[in-house]
């Protein structure tokens, strides 16, 4: 029999040293791929994920084109080496489902009706997975869309909360995700207060759910601030450099 792992110790500290409502360290960068029209990279804990946007562009095959708006296509994919045991590169049922819910979390953020008959193709590649890849993927994808100059109602920030060892925790890592009692991934547009992705598995009472959901929203707000910073970073750096040079 496997021994039950303790995920939260007596003083409320998690296996990676975090407090229950603490995010993992996050690194976000926009414009990381030169071929893509927009791109972004995220590290969240040991997650390493790339997102790239191509388009709006001609739709192939052409019969898929929509007369009144752009077609958003999304592929969430995990690299074979991203997990402990090699994953087959063929898309799994899990990846098919996640591609769909990720797309549905981003569609409402984009002014798709401004580009009829075109396609916006979004690719999310998980290079290393550490729990919460779908939400980290959405965070990066939203940044890539903004980097591509695609008009958006808001940036979509995503974060999960869940329950492990009886505690409601923010941003579950791989171990907490696998051994914990429940996982609630959420994608949220803070400026307009709308939820675009919500899933749950595990077991939670409605009261526990509400607590976890609110915590996830709080996490989204913090990640949103990081997204804005990452989007501005390149331009602010140039501006500062120019102004500094000007003062000399």
């Amino acid at each position, binding site marked *: 029999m496997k021994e039950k792992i303790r995920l939260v110790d007596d003083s409320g500290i998690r296996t990676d040293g975090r407090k229950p409502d603490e995010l993992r360290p996050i690194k976000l960068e926009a414009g990381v791929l030169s071929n893509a029209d927009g791109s972004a990279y995220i590290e969240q804990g040991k997650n390493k994920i790339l997102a790239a946007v191509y388009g709006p562009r001609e739709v192939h095959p052409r019969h898929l084109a929509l007369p009144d708006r752009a077609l958003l296509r999304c592929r969430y994919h995990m690299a074979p080496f991203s997990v402990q045991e090699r994953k087959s590169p063929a898309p799994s*049922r*899990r990846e*098919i*489902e996640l*591609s*769909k*819910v990720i*797309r*549905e979390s981003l*569609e*409402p953020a984009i002014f798709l009706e401004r580009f009829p008959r075109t396609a916006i193709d979004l690719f999310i590649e998980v290079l290393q997975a550490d729990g919460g890849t779908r939400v980290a993927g959405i965070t990066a994808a939203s940044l890539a869309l903004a980097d591509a100059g695609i008009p958006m109602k808001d940036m979509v920030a995503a974060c999960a909360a869940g329950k492990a060892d009886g505690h409601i925790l923010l941003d579950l890592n791989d171990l907490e995700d696998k051994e914990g009692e429940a996982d*609630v991934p959420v994608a949220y*547009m803070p400026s307009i*207060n*709308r*939820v*675009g*992705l*919500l*899933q*749950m*598995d*595990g*077991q*939670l*009472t*409605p009261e526990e*759910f*509400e607590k976890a*959901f*609110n915590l996830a*929203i709080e996490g989204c707000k913090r990640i949103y601030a990081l997204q804005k910073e990452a989007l501005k970073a390149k331009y602010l750096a140039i501006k500062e450099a120019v102004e500094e040079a000007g003062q000399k």
Partner: protein
Amino acid sequence: MTNVTISRIRQKQIAQLLSSGKRLDGRGLLDYRPIQIETGIIEKAEGSARVRLGKTEVVVGVKIEIGEPFPDRPDEGVLTTNAEFVPLASPEFEAGPPTEDSVELARVVDRGIRESKAIDLKKLCIIPGKKVFIVFIDIYVLNHDGNLIDASALAALAALTNTKIFKYEVKDGEVKIKPGFKDLPLINYPVAITLADIDGNLIVDPWLDEEEIMNARLTISFDKDGKICAMQKGGSGTLSPQQIIEAIKIAKEKSEELRGLVVKKNG
């Protein structure tokens, strides 16, 4: 004639009625369509059920086979759920590999059953690490008139309640099937409730026309103790946090109503 696109005038009509608390088919916002459940309809399957939810019709067959356990769970049986959008069910369905929608349907139904631990998988172990029972749940959509998730989840639960597994004995490391059957060890009864948001109004059990114009849907699965065991937002729109909390309250009540239909039927 396909019903892929509904006319704008119909859209308007549906939305206007909703804002005055009514629906095109006469239902209240929080009413399900009439539900009919029949079990044991496929004799060759170890368990089966047909659910009619209004004009939506779903058959679930459960097959039991002996196979190998997953390496990380050597002492548990295996549950696998699949959904087929049979082309005869809708002008929109085509023969071919599973679509995004059918994969989502199967996975949402599966999640409700798995996360509520409805089947006592430990009791399906025959020889640890070597032989276990595999439970195949196959969802067959026969007519699509909206809300396939709730109909399928209900049909799956009904089919599991009448699933029999064959008796066996283990002799010299070999599994021998014996005459006779026993009940599948079913210890929880998950029910999925789907709500849709149309112009800010929450409704339960959207039918096809309502699905066409909804912003988004939210499916919430409850186990027998009133715990949430699965959730899935779907559709290309959004919900407000307040709506989500409201939806849970509605769904909890509705889940008890729907569970009663299955549990009563089986005593």
